């Protein structure tokens, strides 16, 4: 197993896996039972323990994709490892962005009475979701490893550069209409004590889950590449194998 076939050392992966399980259990205990309901929002507050960390993880995952893409483009550090990391992290990023949107609207329904509000953060997350959905669609198109790697890396950087611009312009746009939006989850939730602890547990648990899944998805990418390489060798054998016989 040469180093490129594993992202994390197996022992480290097991530790992270166990940590993730413990984190999730702790999150469920605290999030659903331990932490008291919020005096203003009531029980709906418990959805924030998912909404906030998954939003944070989405941004973090796309940051990892951007860094991996830059490393792939830089000739000295170019290696298939970075292309795989970029792809795996973007896939997780899109999943967490999707969850952020769904849980966000589930939270909005009891609190604001609407499934969707043009709140700056939700709008930015929605644009982000489609931005990277396009990136994943592009990644699925096959081709020569190096040229598709470069193409994907540049597409990832184009998308990533757009994130702050989208965030900045949407933030401007929404605060233009409502000064400090009462809808802003952070503003309305004065969180401290057990609630703050629960939020930190949530962020930790989500991060461990992300790292573990990143390693697993990376491993899957390795296997797909090795199988493709073997299929290629097979095709070369067939192509040159029947050479002396029937000239195709």
């Amino acid at each position, binding site marked *: 197993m040469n180093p490129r076939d594993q992202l994390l050392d197996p022992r480290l992966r097991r530790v992270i896996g166990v940590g993730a399980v413990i984190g999730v259990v702790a999150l469920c205990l605290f999030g659903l039972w331990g932490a008291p309901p919020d005096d203003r929002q009531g029980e709906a507050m418990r959805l924030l323990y998912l909404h906030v960390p998954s939003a944070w993880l989405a941004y973090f995952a796309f940051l990892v994709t951007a860094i991996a893409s830059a490393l792939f483009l830089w000739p000295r550090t170019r290696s298939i490892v970075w292309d795989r990391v970029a792809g795996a992290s973007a896939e997780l990023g899109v999943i967490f962005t999707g969850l952020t949107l769904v849980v966000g609207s589930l939270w909005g329904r009891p609190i604001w009475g609407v499934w969707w509000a043009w709140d700056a953060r939700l709008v930015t997350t929605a644009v982000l979701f489609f931005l990277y959905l396009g990136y994943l*669609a592009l990644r699925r198109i096959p081709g020569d490893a190096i040229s598709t790697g470069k193409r994907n890396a540049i597409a990832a950087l*184009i998308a990533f550069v757009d994130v702050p611009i989208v965030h900045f312009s949407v933030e*401007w746009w929404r605060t233009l209409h409502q000064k400090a939006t009462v809808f802003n989850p952070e503003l309305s939730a004065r969180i401290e004590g057990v609630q703050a602890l629960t939020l930190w547990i949530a962020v930790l648990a989500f991060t461990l889950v992300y790292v573990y899944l990143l390693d697993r998805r990376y491993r899957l990418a390795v296997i797909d590449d090795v199988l493709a390489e073997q299929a290629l060798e097979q095709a070369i054998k067939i192509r040159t194998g029947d050479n002396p016989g029937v000239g195709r």
Partner: protein
Amino acid sequence: MRLWREASLVAAKDLRIEARSRIALGQILPFGIIVAILFAFALDPDSGLLTRVAPGLFWVTVLLAALLAVGRSFAVEEKSNARDGLRLTGLDGSAVFLGKMAAIAAELFFLEILLGIAVVILYGVEVNGVVVLLAAAPAATLGIASTGTLYGVLAAGLRSRETLLPLLLLPVLAPVLLGATRAFEGGLEGAPSDAWPWVGLLWIFATFYTAFGVLAFGTLWEND
């Protein structure tokens, strides 16, 4: 500077092809006007709503027209494999990028003027704050043209490029639509002070992606 000579060569080639084939003027502009009319069907014209949202509808129409212009610009290269011909000349990728981007931007800007006149007439918009409009429109156009050219070459040659291009391009252009619409609203409602920050955003967006294109286009252009 060799780069500008080569870029203007590519731009001249694209614009001459457009002048000959009249696709932008003969097909993309009518498409834009039809979309503007469809918006009027969708929104009740005499409720005054149309005039208020005219800037937004205008820029959405420009974005849709830009998709066609970018698609056309790279379809020209596919025919009889002209793309390989262009690569064989050994032209530098950034020259090809600036050339094609300038041609698309010129077509779009020309389109915007004519479409703007149509929208003013159709939606009954009284124009003022022209200085802001003239500052915002080129920035938005260059922003659209630069990202359009980048994604155009990225999707060129791929089987599903017609459907992939909108999916890739439109989310990236969200801030341009926001900025251009708000800038135009500020201009038209005679509150230019609100508009200038958005004009600044548009110029930052355009400069950034033009620089990005000059650096990255070569790599994409060489990909087969």
